[in-house]
């Protein structure tokens, strides 16, 4: 019977086609099923070293430490492009703390993380882990030598020189609402001068576009 089958080329081709037609989808489905059941293994990609940011950061780094209203610590980070969503795990003497991180949607290479307060002088280990799979991305050791002082000074030294006005006891100021525009527009100016009794309030203005 087999010889009859093999001698008939047309039948042979048809059977081969049928096998392929059924077999290939079964194989693909099996592979996908097995893949989805596999536990993701830690990759062999080396963990990045995280440090304080320099003048022109390129790799992931810590930009500054701060704090919020609840006393929690804020850590701002510079991120390389297309970094997956992540969180921080901070190991310190008092234990481990997890920090939730928010990537900045407008500027892709920036994020801030908020978590348990850190103490000045504390030695900490920061591990950045991916939210998906808890895969370590970066690691670094820090000494919290200062809070509210950034890792580098930038842009604060030179400025459009402002002629300081004498500080008086009371000052008039104008509150100008900008509901639609942050650009000063005289037609939308609904300023409400307040303390009318004040006299010398106009400060010397420095021309714009220095």
């Amino acid at each position, binding site marked *: 019977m087999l010889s009859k089958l093999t001698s008939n080329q047309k039948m042979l081709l048809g059977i081969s086609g049928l096998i392929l037609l059924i077999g290939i989808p079964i194989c693909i489905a099996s592979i996908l099923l097995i893949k989805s059941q596999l536990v993701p293994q830690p990759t062999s990609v080396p963990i990045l070293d995280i440090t304080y940011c320099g003048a022109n950061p390129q790799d992931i780094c810590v930009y500054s430490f701060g704090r919020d209203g609840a006393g929690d610590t804020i850590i701002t980070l510079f991120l390389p492009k297309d970094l997956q969503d992540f969180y921080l795990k901070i190991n310190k003497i008092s234990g481990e703390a997890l920090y939730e991180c928010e990537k900045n949607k407008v500027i892709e290479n920036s994020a801030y993380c908020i978590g348990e307060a850190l103490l000045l002088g504390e030695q900490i280990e920061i591990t950045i882990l991916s939210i998906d799979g808890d895969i370590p991305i970066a690691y670094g050791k820090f000494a919290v030598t200062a809070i509210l002082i*950034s890792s580098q000074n930038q842009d604060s030294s030179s400025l459009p020189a402002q002629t300081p006005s004498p500080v008086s006891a009371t000052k008039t100021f104008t509150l100008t609402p900008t509901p639609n525009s942050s*650009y000063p527009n005289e037609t939308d100016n609904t300023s409400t001068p307040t303390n009318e009794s004040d006299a010398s309030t106009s400060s010397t203005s420095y021309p714009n576009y220095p």
Partner: protein
Amino acid sequence: MIHVLQDGFLTFQNHFWLIICIYLVILWGQIVMQYMLSKIFANQFTEDEYFALSLSGWIFPVFVWAGIYFLLNILLGKIIAGIISTIIFIIPFFSIKFKKISPMIFYLSLFLLLSLFLRLALLEQAIFPSYFDSAEHYRVIQYFLSMYQNESWSVNWFMLNYNYYYHTGYHFLSATLIYLFRFNEISFMLVFGQILLALLPISFFFLLKQITGSNTIAFFTCLIAGFGFHMPAYLINWGKYPALLSLVGVQFVICLGYILIKYSVVQSSKSKLYLLVCLSVFITALIHTRTLIIFALVTVLFFVSYQTKKLSIRSQYLSLLLLFVFLGIEFFYIFQSPVLSLLLTGYTQRDLWSLILVLLLIPFSIKSFPNLTFFLLTILCLFMSLLFFPVSLFDYGTQTLLDRPFVQILAYFPLSIIIGLGFASLLFTLQQPPYIRSLINFVMFSFIFLNLNFNYNFYPSDCCQLVSRDDVSALSWIGNNLPDNTKVLIPSNRLYVTAYESTQTQAGVDAGIWITPLFGKDTILSSTETNFEIESVHMLLCSKSIQYIYIGSMPQSFNQISLASHPNWYDPVFLLPKTQVYELIGCQ
């Protein structure tokens, strides 16, 4: 300069697809423009002249294409508009014929590539587009984007929301490209600006090639226009992107104007040329309405200098002398004005070497190109004179026809051409012995190289980067955590550009100006010298329902100490080294 190129290359890698897509659009514009020009001028120009001129005018076909897409979007819907626009975009690329390019085109392309990498270096340090103008440009771009995204767009919606005209052309074009290619708006503004800067000098090649007939002079003038003066690159620090885009239009229209005067075009092509000129003027005016004043001035001056040509030599020199006297008087009064003096100090402090070169070459320029030099100097003179005469315009209050920043931007144009003409005259004058010409060429090109290395700044100026990395985090926190109806107090200073502004006109001075455009939350401007330690101030803030106070990273932001000293009135909610957000509490 090596580290500048390295930074530029890094930026190129980081924004690779954005840059490639923008360049594809520019290339498309150039191909279409070249086709149109070849229909008008046939074989009147060389290959490199066509290359330079068509690249100078790329924005006009692109603008028309964007307009077609916009109209099709409204009339036929997104999908059909997308298909038709894609077809229109693809077709010109099939007309590209691969052939051997001339050496000059190769050198120009190399120059443009180098220029691009040098310009991109700025983005290594620029976090956000600079200064307060950029925030408004972003906001208006978002407005046009919402028009594309708003399925129920209507004329009524347009009239309700578009409450004042503001550089419509730039915002419309930017929004269309961002929408079509799904760019990030901030990245687009930054990258597009640098690409425009990289390509801007190319129109000088065409112009000087036409005037002098020399590739060397034309190429040199390209370099001087690109890297000899702080303008137009410096305007990036002011966030004046519409002005930058309008320069592309102005320079192209001036090239067309020169062609109109110089060449007698075949009658059938004349109408096409006039149409092209009118369309270019219209689109350029849409981008920046003040360019109409430039076009008007140039047209009037053309006729004036044409009449001057008919005068005797003695009278011509007398006119020139009077012009120098008038320029001197203008310089004097400009220097006296605290608002206007920045025009002169901007050039003397940053471009002293180039100005010395201008002074050295002016006699040669006058010798060989008297009418053109007279024309250029008069243009400069008129630009500056318009700084002194106020006009009241509709709801815009008192303005001047040209303001100091715009004149400061434009001044590089006549100065660069004068240097080019002077160089040409120098070479014509000192023809023998031949090694002298080589020596002069070497000195002139070395000047550019030295200026690039020791004087030119490719990075953002400290003056105007309102947004630091801490600001980015604070802004993000505000966007994520504060409710939509939040009112945030941000610092401001008097707007002081022409000295005719009302004292009520305020401009934001730190990153707080980005809160409204980015997140739609209301911001209230208040003087940087607001004394938060006074109870009446606290009461006023409470009465105005202000909930938060933003202190950015600029030195002219609010004084944080005055807020920190009253914890019962101002509660710190987000503190970083350079940026703080306080909540207003203790309101009765």
